[in-house]
């Protein structure tokens, strides 16, 4: 049983106009097995929350704490956060030219498991993870995210989620740019990871569509750098009907 605790998190970014505060005190607690949907309009700070937890150097933490089972996440380097059990499925996964998917996955698995996975079982692991997401086996020989379609990038992120077995996953707009078939396949992957590893999930999305496939236990509405309302799945239905207009004007 793991707990990710975010307390009064305040985050700024450096822009041409100086430091701009994006997160203005975020409180959120996620336990293993729970799925928290974070919904909100564009520019409300949802992605900033995701990248701040993962440790992207662009963001400056100006206040608050993030702990995973009591350990100070904000003190950790980016790779240490992953080793502690955090995973970020990115909205725009980065191309790494010249590095094959299979080399990348094996290097990541070696780093996270502390030893190189046995080649024979590893090949099988990767193969079944790819099959489960309807991915062509030739995918493994391609360079990381290079020339991938939007859907392929998202499948590749979720394949990593299944292979690397984190404790807590942040899915940053994993649904964006996916057609219905791809959305279903990707969502099934998330659900498999939840069931297999009792994964805790922060599901960041603009739309309610993905919530038909990945059932949230909690829904938080994000606006202007903080959580402005929270509830159960019924809150998502309300957003579906009314949109974010009520929150943006506040």
């Amino acid at each position, binding site marked *: 049983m793991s707990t990710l605790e975010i307390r009064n998190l305040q985050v700024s970014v450096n822009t041409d106009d100086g430091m701009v505060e994006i997160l203005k005190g975020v409180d959120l607690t996620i336990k293993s097995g729970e799925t928290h949907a974070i919904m909100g309009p564009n520019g409300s700070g949802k992605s900033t929350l995701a990248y701040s937890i993962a*440790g*992207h150097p662009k963001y400056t933490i100006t206040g608050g704490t993030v702990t995973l089972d009591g350990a100070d996440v904000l003190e950790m*380097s980016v790779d240490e956060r992953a080793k502690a059990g955090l995973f970020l499925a990115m909205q725009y996964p980065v191309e*790494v030219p*010249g590095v094959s998917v299979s080399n990348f996955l094996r290097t990541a698995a070696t780093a996270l498991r502390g030893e190189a996975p046995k080649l024979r079982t590893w090949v099988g692991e990767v193969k079944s993870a790819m099959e489960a997401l309807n991915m062509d086996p030739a995918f493994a020989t391609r360079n990381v995210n290079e020339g991938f379609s939007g859907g392929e990038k998202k499948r590749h992120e979720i394949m990593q989620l299944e292979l690397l077995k984190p404790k807590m996953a942040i899915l940053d707009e994993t649904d964006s740019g996916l057609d219905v078939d791809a959305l279903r396949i990707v969502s099934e992957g998330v659900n498999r990871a939840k069931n297999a590893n009792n994964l805790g999930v922060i599901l960041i999305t603009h739309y309610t569509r993905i919530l038909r496939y990945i059932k949230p236990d909690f829904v938080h509405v994000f606006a202007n750098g903080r959580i402005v309302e929270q509830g159960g799945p019924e809150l998502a239905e309300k957003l579906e009907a009314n949109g974010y207009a009520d929150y943006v004007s506040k």
Partner: protein
Amino acid sequence: MSVLTTNYLTPTGREEAWRFTPLKRLRGLHDGTAVQSDRESLITKGALPSGVTFIRENLEPLSASDDVIIERVRGSASSVAHLAIAANTELTEPIFLGRSAGGMDTAEFSRVRISLGTHAVATVIVENTTDTVLAEDLEIYLAPGSNLKFVTLQEFESKSVYTARHHAIVDKDAIFKSITVTVGGDVVRILPTVAFKAPGASADLLGVYFATAGQFFEHRNHIDHAVPHAKSNVNYKGALAGQDAHTVWIGDVLIRAAAEGTDTYELNRNLLLSDGARADSVPNLEIETGEIVGAGHASTTGRFDDEQLFYLMSRGIAMADARRLVVRGFFNEIVSEIGNEEIQHRIMDRIDNELEKAGHNV
């Protein structure tokens, strides 16, 4: 042994061709003060297949050169080491040439010829190791319809000074591909140049270089499109790490008035891995006819992409390993073209080691 005569023009460093080169570190190759050795270090490794000969003979140069060091080499080398691949010989295995004998007190002036007969197909790999002072005039002739992959590996030790012209004359419908790898030496200056002799010919000039503290590596491509319907492509990639690591890439492409239907592209990318390093990158495209298929160039010099490192590290990969992956990936596009696993691993391992030696400052 004889001291060279000095009736050659000595570069001062103000000439366009020499403005980047640290002349003082050339150990007298350029000004005639180098003491000529009687070394003839180029040898073949292993038995030569049928249709292939390697002999020393007297040959007139195939091309003119305005490079003062090449002039000196031509004036003083007593014979030419000639690798000849007979017409219609199709080799499936590479021919290995190499230099492992050297010396820093005297300079070797070497002339080399590689010639392919019509429709010959071959891969030639030249491995340059050891500490040495070497000036080399290497000419390649590809007869009509022949195909050569020419790999040169500059894996010198840290004191070596190597200046060379690798000039390919590519005849009708012949296919030339060179892969130039420079990862060792104090000063390395190579002129990988091409002249097309007849239509239908193509040349692919690929290269990688990795300079660490104090090293100077210069590559000057020149492609002469003097005939119609020839195709050329240049792609050189370099990385630099450490104080006063300095690389130069010059890409000169000349499309003459007669060269209608020319298709050419050149690309140079540099990765600056630390402060104190300098990469010069100068593409020059001179076009005398508008009737061409395409002509372009691009040059980029940048640092590590933070987004790439973040992505890899967010999967648990430590900073040093993430950097190694990115650098390997950067070079892989070209190194994998060598087509020999053992050599590819050796080059990548050398790059890993250089990166590690450059240390945590990168």
